[in-house]
């Protein structure tokens, strides 16, 4: 015997959260829950991920954003980071050997800013110290002595030569391009006539003398360059000596301050050598050099710039400084461009060109998170050009290498810096949705290697009296955090009930905390409108109703079309081959159900069921699968000893879009059986549920919305008391129906039937017994099966007759 299906009692349609079981009046009486609820798996994963100190154990927190995973992860990271000591500071300093590769310097926490400021003071003091050293009498005198000594040497030789010439009545004359010797008489060059008058011997002697003097002069002049070089060398040595003396005191002062830091000591040694080598550039600008005056403004400007450039080398760029914190950092970079991640090198425009140096290196989020934790939104990282690649490269190589985007793209190759990479010590936590995680896993071979920990945030949790109590405490925490009115006990219960409805499951609660928070905020608004100090159940209901109204344009338009008989839906009477199926639509956040008329027509054929939706490619593969299962069911039940000789067509009437899912397959089967057996079906009932080849009705999604969708139509037309919905029995646990439905059910105006098998459904829809198979394999005549079998038999006969006739005709 088929089990008779009873309509569900109201208490099975809505699992109430009983406020009486709570021992508080408002949420103010509760201790707010700081911990996370319902995310045990994710919590464990995050804790494992941040505790695991091996390469590649970075965390990907996946799950819907509504679970508020960003805050949860941040909460964990901060708790951990606060217990960890401040990480080392980082500085960039000039590299005197390879200027384009600035050196990265690791310093104890809180030292970088101090060192940088010390070096700034040093550069300022250095110029003054050098200036006064080079303006000192000692230096000036020593330099003059050197210069004069060199000049005297030269001058002496020159004067001797002049003297020698004079003794021989010859004069050294200056021509525009050089020197010459000429015989002289009374201060004037001897006229050529007088030379001519000389005897041959006299003239030859004169010529010899001139030649000798010329040779000598040539020798003296040739010595000039080497003498000048010698002079320059002596002056240079003097300058270096003075510079070293002037700078040493200043440098030693800093040396003492950073006694234990080998890297700083070595850097200071290099600075000392550099000052000595560059003393000319440094002093010229400070006015200590005698040549400083006469040259033009531009030259002076250039000199000043040059010395500034030299001085800048001695500064230190305190990239990361932890002088104001005493624990490890947690950084969330909400604009993860490539430069914001790995740092960048800025440029300055100088006389029309772009220049840069190590002081213009700026840290990225990875630098700032050094020794701590970096949180990033995976989708944002992926949508920024080169950011994902840069992040992976950094994690892979274990060092932060600053590279400019232009270089990465290979567009330009201007002279730029390649700062020494900083060893990476950061735990990265990516936040993203599940699809992104699985896509990355599938498409990016490096992903699994670099993000070994998946922290999967669940969107639902079990509902029990304990968890309901915890949920109430979580609500108390939200109330406190967002400064809302406290919730009264029934309001808490209502929120918990809605939470179950959010996941469409009476036995589960939603972990979409941000959505719950929104609901509380909206309820708070309605409480404020009512000038209440607390949020009541009515306020929560108001908030939900208002939300439904706001999103209700499309839903109401569809219902209006049904009520005005534009969309044909019957809610009373009986029709053959016509059933009210139910479908569900999601628009934005709102989800709602609507009835669809499903019809079937049957004729003689070869045993095929035509799904019109599929024929026009509006039916998806799952829908087609559902329809094909119907054929299986029909053949097995009615056509074991003869061919199935019908052609049936099934259609969703007035459906103009794509249909997907198999939740209408039971409705289609009812329609088909009604059409074949010519059994009228009650239009006061609507049907949902998928069916298998054995006729069992299987659960579907969106049961609540579907029931409410049909109920709304019936209610607006006026409830007759016969109306109801057939749902799969397996869906009863999902029911969290709206109170308007519950009320109607309580009043016996509407019925929800849990159906396990297609036979039960058919009996409910037709009021005919289904008809069990008899000993001879036939069905009782006045039963659904009987009528169906009869029709099929007739069709089979007709088909045989038809085939025989046509065969004979052919012969």
């Amino acid at each position, binding site marked *: 015997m088929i089990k008779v299906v009873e309509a569900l009692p109201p208490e099975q349609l809505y699992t109430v959260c009983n406020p009486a079981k709570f021992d508080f009046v408002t949420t103010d009486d509760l201790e707010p829950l700081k911990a996370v609820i319902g995310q045990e798996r994710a919590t464990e994963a995050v804790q494992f991920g941040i505790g695991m100190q091996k390469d590649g154990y970075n965390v990907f927190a996946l799950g819907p954003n509504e679970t508020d995973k960003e805050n949860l992860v941040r909460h964990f990271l901060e708790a951990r980071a606060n217990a960890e000591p401040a990480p080392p500071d980082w500085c960039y300093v000039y590299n005197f050997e390879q200027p384009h590769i600035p050196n990265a310097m690791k310093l104890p926490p809180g030292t970088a800013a101090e060192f940088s400021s010390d070096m700034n003071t040093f550069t300022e003091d250095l110029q003054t110290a050098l200036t006064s050293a080079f303006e000192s009498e000692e230096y000036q005198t020593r330099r003059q002595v050197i210069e004069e000594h060199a000049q005297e040497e*030269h001058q002496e030789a020159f004067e001797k030569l002049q003297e020698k010439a004079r003794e021989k009545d010859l004069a050294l*004359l200056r021509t525009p391009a050089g020197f010459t010797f000429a015989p002289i008489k009374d201060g004037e060059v001897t006229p050529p006539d007088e030379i001519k008058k000389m005897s041959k011997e006299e003239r030859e002697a004169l010529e010899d003398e001139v030649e000798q003097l010329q040779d000598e002069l040539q020798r003296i002049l040739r010595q000039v360059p080497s003498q000048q070089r010698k002079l320059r060398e002596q002056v240079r040595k003097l300058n270096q000596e003075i510079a070293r003396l002037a700078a040493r005191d200043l440098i030693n002062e800093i040396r003492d301050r950073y006694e234990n830091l080998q890297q700083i000591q070595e850097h200071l040694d290099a600075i000392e050598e550099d000052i000595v080598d560059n003393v000319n550039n440094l002093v010229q600008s400070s006015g200590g050099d005698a040549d400083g005056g006469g040259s033009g403004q531009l030259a002076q400007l250039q000199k000043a710039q040059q010395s500034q450039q030299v001085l800048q080398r001695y500064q230190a760029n305190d990239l990361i400084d932890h002088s104001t914190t005493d624990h490890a950092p947690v950084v969330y970079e909400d604009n993860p461009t490539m430069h914001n991640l790995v740092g960048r090198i800025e440029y300055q425009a100088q006389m029309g060109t772009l220049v840069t140096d190590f002081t213009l290196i700026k840290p990225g989020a990875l630098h700032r998170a050094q020794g701590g934790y970096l949180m990033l939104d995976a989708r944002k990282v992926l949508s920024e050009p080169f950011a994902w690649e840069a992040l992976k490269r950094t994690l892979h190589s274990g060092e932060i290498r600053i590279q400019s985007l232009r270089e990465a793209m290979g567009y330009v190759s201007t002279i730029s810096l390649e700062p020494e990479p900083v060893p990476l010590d950061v735990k990265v936590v990516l936040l993203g949705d599940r699809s992104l995680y699985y896509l990355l896993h599938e498409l990016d071979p490096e992903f699994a290697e670099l993000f070994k920990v998946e922290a999967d945030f669940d969107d639902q949790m079990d509902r029990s009296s304990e968890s309901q109590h915890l949920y109430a405490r979580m609500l108390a925490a939200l109330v406190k955090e967002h400064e809302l009115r406290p919730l009264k006990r029934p309001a808490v219960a209502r929120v918990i009930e809605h939470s179950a409805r959010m996941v469409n499951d009476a036995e589960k609660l939603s972990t979409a905390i941000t959505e719950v928070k929104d609901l509380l905020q909206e309820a708070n608004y309605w409480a404020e409108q009512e000038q209440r100090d607390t949020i009541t159940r009515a306020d929560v209901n108001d908030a939900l109703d208002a939300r439904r109204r706001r999103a209700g344009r499309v839903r109401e338009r569809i219902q209006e079309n049904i009520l005005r008989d534009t969309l044909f839906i019957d809610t009373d009477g009986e029709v053959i081959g016509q059933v009210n199926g139910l479908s569900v639509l999601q628009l934005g956040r709102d989800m709602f159900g609507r009835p669809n008329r499903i019809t079937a027509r049957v004729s003689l054929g070869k045993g095929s069921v035509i799904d019109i939706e599929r024929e026009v490619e509006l039916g998806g593969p799952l829908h087609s699968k559902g329809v094909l299962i119907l054929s299986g069911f029909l053949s097995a039940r009615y056509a074991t000893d003869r061919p199935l000789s019908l052609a049936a067509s099934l259609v969703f009437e007035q459906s103009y879009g794509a249909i997907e899912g198999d939740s209408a397959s039971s409705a289609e089967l009812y329609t088909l059986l009604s059409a074949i057996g010519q059994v009228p079906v009650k239009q006061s009932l609507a049907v949902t549920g998928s069916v298998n080849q054995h006729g069992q009705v299987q659960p579907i999604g969106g049961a609540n919305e579907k029931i409410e969708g049909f109920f709304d139509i019936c209610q607006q037309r006026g409830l007759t008391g016969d109306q109801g919905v057939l749902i799969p029995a397996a869906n009863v646990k999902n029911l969290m129906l709206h109170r308007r439905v519950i009320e109607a059910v309580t009043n016996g105006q509407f019925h929800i039937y849990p159906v396990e098998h297609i036979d039960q459904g058919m009996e409910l829809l037709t009021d005919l017994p289904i008809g069990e198979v008899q000993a001879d394999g036939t069905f009782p005549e006045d039963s659904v099966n009987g009528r169906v079998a009869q029709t099929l038999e007739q069709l089979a006969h007709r088909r045989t007759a038809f085939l025989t006739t046509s065969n004979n005709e052919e012969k």
Partner: protein
Amino acid sequence: MSDDPTKVRIRRILVAMDASPHSQSALQAAIELATHTGANLAGIFVEDENLLRMGNLSFTREIRLFSTAVAACSADDIQRQLRVQRRRAEELVHAAARRAGVSSTFRTVRGQVEKEILAACSNADVVALGRQSYSNSGAKKLGSTAQALLQQASVPVMVLPEEAQLRAPVMVLYDGSKAANQALLLAAQITKQTQYTPLSVVNLAATPDKAGPLEKEVLQLLQPHKLHVSFYSIGRFSAQRLLHLLETHQSGLIISPAALGTANEQQQLLKTITSPVILVH
């Protein structure tokens, strides 16, 4: 010079040009002076008779300054070189005068350099020239032309070291001689016109008891000019002490009687001082 013994007027400044760095400094200083005094600038270039004559001697050779190459050098070559030099000098004078808005003339003469410049001095109020005609011999001492002018010129001679600039303050060396009086008046005039005040006077009294009267004399002479005057003293005269004073006060123009101390001391002073010097006879 004006006929009035208490007044000195500068109406015409003669600049001896040879296009060397020293003479360019002289030109700049002359321009600066002319700008303030409204004087006319007269450039002069002397084509050295000696050089032309030398060119006619078959056996003489020119030793080039930088390459130290020895090359034959005919009169034509010299003529050509001088022409180039003269053109440069002329361009320099006119361009500088044009920039400063000073009226200028330029004259080329042929002859013995010292003689010709001395001759040209007669209708100038100041003559400006570089300390040397060339700098590469390494010598810091005075060039022969400068020496001749200092000894024989009847007008104040402004001598300029390479790269020296005329600027404030003006410092006058006063020893009570007639030339010193002239120097003082010239200094007063220049100070007034350039407004390089105050005028610094170095009191070079031979003995300490003469310092007071000397100072009074200065004030009396300067009375009509109504200038703010600062006095300095070096005690017993020596070139070394004077130089030290001049160095520490960084004077921008020194005006001195031509005959000061011994010939040696004069030489030492002139070759060491790095600012422009006007020597008055």
